[in-house]
């Protein structure tokens, strides 16, 4: 017994100790206020526990005290980089509850706006991903530069640059101003050139490949089991896009591909986003050419009193499938409103992915999952 004790203490002369670090809530690359409690053995991550809720505003409770129209601005604050897509998801849910028809021009405008916002969101996504890999600020600023062009277009349409509150129940806030289609066409031409720049700067950069290839591989089964959606799921090679599977609005009238990844690693997730920008540009281009005449603004009342019932509507957000589940009791306010934010389940997989990797890989994987905390915490 004594022998084994001394052997143990001999062994323990040189030993390493696990230690705990708190990444966040104040940390440059946790994409908002997320706290990751990491157990480390030197540089290697033994365990990682996310703590959420720093941005929790209880949106769902607020919704129960607001009329259907009043809640639209709140949806802007969910995924604040893709506000239009949130507006769209919410308004489509209420429209389904009300069994309301939307003018055709409004549907086209919605598609254009949603796709432009998808581009803007992906630009931030890939910029922030490169920033997380240590390409200090340059790709991020390039992303912001190109996003700025989109924001200028949005500014002209609805007067806002981040929280648009543009899509309304039964239509949109206002028609396109004069000469806007020309501006959007110019942007498409510009962006097509710039997206090749991103490819040159980042996509096949040897360091980026070394950092992100085969890091955080998400197999098909695990991805589905965790209910991962959007580009992160498509990067694992699963063709699942609501715009194709169950086309809403007028998506079935446009030609576009669903880019897929092969391994589901961080690089694939990045690459799928770059390709999705190209596809979104295609959709916008087709939509702007086919834009029908008419009045896209809503003629509905401000107070809606839908019949008692329940609806669940999913839309394709830049981050995945955004679902709104509304229960109505016939009054002017929702009885219950549930927001199914895609980032919520996309983040849930993080602890699984980072185990056994290096600290730098946590940041790389978190960046490649492209989460927005506003939507996770709600």
């Amino acid at each position, binding site marked *: 017994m004594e022998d084994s004790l001394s052997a143990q203490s001999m062994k323990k002369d040189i030993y390493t100790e696990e*230690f705990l*670090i708190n990444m966040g809530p104040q*940390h*440059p*690359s946790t994409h908002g206020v997320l706290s990751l409690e990491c157990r480390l053995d*030197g*540089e290697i991550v033994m365990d990682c526990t996310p703590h959420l809720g720093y941005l929790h505003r209880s949106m769902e409770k607020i919704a129960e005290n607001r009329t259907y129209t009043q809640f639209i601005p709140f949806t802007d604050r969910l995924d604040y980089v893709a506000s239009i897509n949130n507006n769209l998801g919410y308004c489509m849910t209420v429209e389904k509850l009300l069994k309301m028809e939307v003018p055709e021009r409004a549907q086209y405008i919605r598609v254009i706006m949603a796709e432009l916002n998808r581009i803007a969101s992906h630009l931030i996504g890939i910029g922030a991903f*490169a*920033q*997380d*890999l*240590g*390409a*200090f*600020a*340059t790709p991020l*600023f*390039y992303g912001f*530069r190109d996003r700025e062009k989109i924001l200028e277009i949005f500014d002209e349409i609805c007067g806002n640059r981040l929280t648009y509150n543009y899509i309304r129940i039964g239509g949109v806030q206002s028609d396109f101003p004069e000469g806007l289609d020309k501006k959007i066409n110019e942007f498409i031409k510009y962006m097509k050139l710039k997206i090749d720049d991103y490819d040159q*700067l*980042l996509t096949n*950069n040897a*360091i*980026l490949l*070394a*950092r992100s290839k085969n890091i955080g591989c998400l197999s098909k089964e695990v991805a589905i089991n965790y209910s991962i959606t959007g580009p992160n799921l498509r990067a694992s090679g699963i063709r699942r896009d609501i715009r194709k599977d169950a086309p809403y609005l007028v998506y079935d009238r446009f030609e576009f591909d669903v880019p897929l990844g092969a391994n589901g690693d961080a690089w694939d997730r990045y690459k799928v986003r770059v390709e999705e920008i190209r596809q979104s540009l295609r959709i916008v281009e087709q939509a702007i050419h086919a834009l029908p005449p008419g009045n896209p603004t809503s003629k509905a009342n401000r107070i809606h009193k839908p019949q008692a019932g329940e609806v669940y509507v999913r839309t394709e957000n830049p981050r995945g499938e955004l679902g709104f589940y509304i229960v109505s009791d016939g009054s002017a306010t929702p009885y219950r409103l549930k927001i199914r934010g895609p980032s919520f389940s996309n983040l849930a997989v993080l602890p699984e992915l980072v185990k056994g990797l*290096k*600290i*730098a*890989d*946590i*940041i790389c994987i978190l960046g490649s999952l492209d989460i927005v905390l506003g939507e996770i915490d709600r």
Partner: protein
Amino acid sequence: MFTFLNLIFMVMAGVMVLGFIAVSAMFLIWWERKVSAHIQNRYGPMRVGWHGALQSVADVIKLLLKEDIRPTKADAWVWWLAPFFAVVPSVMAFVVIPFSKELIPRDLNIGVLYIMAITSVCVIGIFMAGWGSNNKYSLLGGMRAAAQIISYELPLILSMITVVMVANSLSMQKIVEAQSRCWFIFHPNLALAGLIYIIAATAEVNRTPFDIPEAESELVAGFHTEYSGMKFAMFFLGEYTNVFIVSAIATTLFLGGWKGPLLPPIAWFLIKTYGIITFLMWVRWTFPRLRVDQLMGFAWKFLTPVSFLNLAIVGLLLLK
């Protein structure tokens, strides 16, 4: 012989070096901000002076006036001494940097050896900062810095030795003289050594793609997370002085030092040195960062064997 005149000369040289370091670091900080800004579609500092030229001065005044905060749990002595250990070696390296034929504090006959020895001390300062801060992020940064700088010392020194072999001298001035006809970077035996040197030097001064000790996106600021005010400024000064030193050595060893037509020697020296620094900045603001294990693998599995091989081949060619 130690005379009064000698002492005056030494003091003067010291003052000039220190003055040069301060001005150069301030210029480099402004220049880096400007270069990075223009790479990133920004203007950078624009308000203080012409195109923000006095921004660094304003920053220095701010840093001087800032409160010096020491974490309660920090290891007081280690924490306090670390910035000095980081700065002093890089200042001392200036002794053998030849700005021109005459303008060199002292042309030691073991110049290259002296530089190798003295610049290696910097890592102690960085590691002390990481350890003494008693902060986990700083510790990780300090550990990474120690591992990285020691790993890259080897290829760095091996590439410098190759130059010494060809030039047949350890003295910086003699090496410059040896390049009268052809810069060593264009010398067929030394081109590879030049490439290895610039890669290893980037890692030595902790700049992207080898900036893992600071690694903003992971470790916040690495070893100097806990430092504020003038102590932080010391690290900054040390960092930019190091950048200057490695570029000045590159100029001297590979780009013909202060030699050049028309312009005075010192102008040539500064143009070449700042040219290299600008190149390092360009690299820094373009590439992502490597991971710590990839960095070590690159040093030990690739760069060091290649530089050994290079050394052997150059040696064989010289024997012939």
